[in-house]
């Protein structure tokens, strides 16, 4: 297993149980997993295998029923002990950038304004330069005064990625980021993620059911019925040809 330095995510015996009638359903069942700094892993699996639940718990969007989670050495969940909502909000803001299948751009705000949104909620020095920097990095600087309705789906997802990156997160969580895109645009986004990992050393956790997309990661974890079914390490992780 290739791990660069310290563990960014360390999860032990995570369980998430949902009551369904009189039964209890294990959305994830005893999952342990470590993600090193600068690692790019993907989580695949059929529908209902628990991959979204897993990424939600790793991203502090949802509490596990039991288990432990440490982020960059800091305890987040420990067998029923949780952090306060305010503290979780701070961790989400400082640790994570999130992207989803839908882009959730505000249609009446320009690309630039959408990317600036995170700064509504906290002040950071040099915000403008940072926004300019990520727009350039994602190749959408020329679109900054356009409204979301005036750009392509691929560009919209780039804007969403840019928005997830302005707070300089340690980990990027991507939940089906290409689900709304055709294969050409999907490849394009895959390349963007790859580059962010390669050039910026960004830790990425990607959830997808697209095996081709998963192949660009260094390690693939396959979930089945809430358990880790298989773990594959890519022999030659590299940029997909394109």
């Amino acid at each position, binding site marked *: 297993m290739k791990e660069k330095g310290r563990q960014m995510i360390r999860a032990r015996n995570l369980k998430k149980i949902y009551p369904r009638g009189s039964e209890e359903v294990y959305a994830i069942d005893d999952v342990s997993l470590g993600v090193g700094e600068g690692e790019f892993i993907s989580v695949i699996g059929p*529908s*209902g295998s628990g*991959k*979204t639940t897993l990424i*939600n718990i790793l*991203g502090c*969007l*949802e509490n596990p029923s039991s288990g432990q989670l440490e982020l960059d050495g800091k305890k987040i969940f420990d067998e029923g002990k949780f952090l306060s*909502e*305010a503290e979780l*909000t*701070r961790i*989400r*803001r400082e640790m*994570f950038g*999130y992207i*989803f*299948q*839908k882009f*959730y751009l*505000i*249609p*009446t*705000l320009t690309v630039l*304004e959408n990317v*600036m*949104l*995170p*700064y*509504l*909620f*906290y002040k950071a020095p040099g*915000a*403008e330069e940072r926004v300019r920097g990520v727009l350039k990095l994602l190749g959408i600087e020329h679109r900054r005064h356009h409204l979301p309705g005036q750009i392509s789906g691929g560009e919209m997802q780039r804007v969403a990625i840019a*928005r997830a990156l302005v*707070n300089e997160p340690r980990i990027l969580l991507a*939940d*089906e980021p290409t689900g709304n895109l055709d294969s050409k645009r999907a490849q394009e986004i895959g390349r963007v993620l790859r580059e962010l990992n390669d050039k910026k050393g960004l830790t990425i956790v990607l959830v997808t059911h697209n095996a081709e997309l998963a192949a660009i990661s260094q390690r693939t974890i396959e979930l089945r019925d809430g358990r880790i079914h298989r773990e594959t390490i890519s022999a030659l992780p590299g940029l997909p040809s394109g």
Partner: protein
Amino acid sequence: MISLSQVAYKNLLRKKTRSLLTVIGISLSTWVLVSLLGFNRGYQSSLNRDIDQLGFQVLLTAKGCPYEAATLMLKGGTGLRYMQESVMDSLRKEPEVEGVTPMLMQALFDPNKGESGGITAYLGVDPQTFPRMKSLLQFRQGGWFTDPDAKEAVMGYEAAELEQREVGDLLLIPEKNVELKVVGVLKRTGTQDDGTIFVPLRVVQKVFAKENQLTGVGIKVKKEASIDRLEQKLYDLPDVQVVSLAQVKQTIMSLVSSAKVLVFSIALVAILISVVGVVNTILMSVLERLQEIGILKSMGAMAWDIVKLIWLETLILCLAGGMLGTGLAIATAHLTDILIRQLLPYAPTGGLIHIDLGLIFLTLAVMIFIGLVSGIYPAWKAGRVRPLEAIRSEVE
């Protein structure tokens, strides 16, 4: 850098029609509210001015004597009671009294008036004291009498119109065969003076054979003196009744206030409806944006940040509606004036609607308050959205 209020404003632009309709709803209720509050102030000040124009604050009449031209007409010009001129002397001695003016009202049936005849009222007034007390009366033509014994008349605006007389014309008192020369015509006052024919007191007393008799005495009270105390003393005088114009004013105000209560309840209902409209609009937009709000939360927005955002949206709607409605009320003040005049039993002269800066600020403060109140539930609802909502709705 982008600000929260910009985002709030642009959020409202997403459903332009819906936002616009809500703003229109608020502006209509604001319009009603401003017009009404403006009317309240305008009416009161107009009424005060009207009463002041009467020149005297207390009217003394003989017991049982009608003191209003309208009552006199209803009684067919009869039912007048008299008091002796000597009452004036005791009145002048009161320390609160600044001046007194004697009056003698007489009414006659004039068969040539209108289609089937009518009552004409003559008011004998003292050429010395009356014009001084009624200094607010203005002439359209001519002026006051030349001599206390001159057979002259000053006509109220409507009386002159009805009789079709101008300065220099003659006016016959029917039955008495006395001709009066018109020396003045008054401007319209909106009071009962408009229908009155003013004649020197001594002439009326002589023509109607009522020497030394009066029907009323107008009393002007010194500015700093207490009207109540004077009235108490006047009640002790035998065979007179005291008509306080402060009371008259009160009677009119209480009449009008019952109408006002009705209109105020309508305005209240209008405002409640617009509040429900605002809550509906904002709540809809919150429910439509649950996932987006979830994303904002995952970006580091605290519940309070989201509450502020939603509250700002409500405030923008209410303020926009409030300003539009206030503008509308100012623009239509004249029209409203005309409308209200047709609805009220008695409307004073002058502008009934009085909208000033204080009223505008008050209204905007009310609208801000309404915005805050109607934003509470949607904002609370939005603030509670968990970041997870952003992903929940995705099909796994």
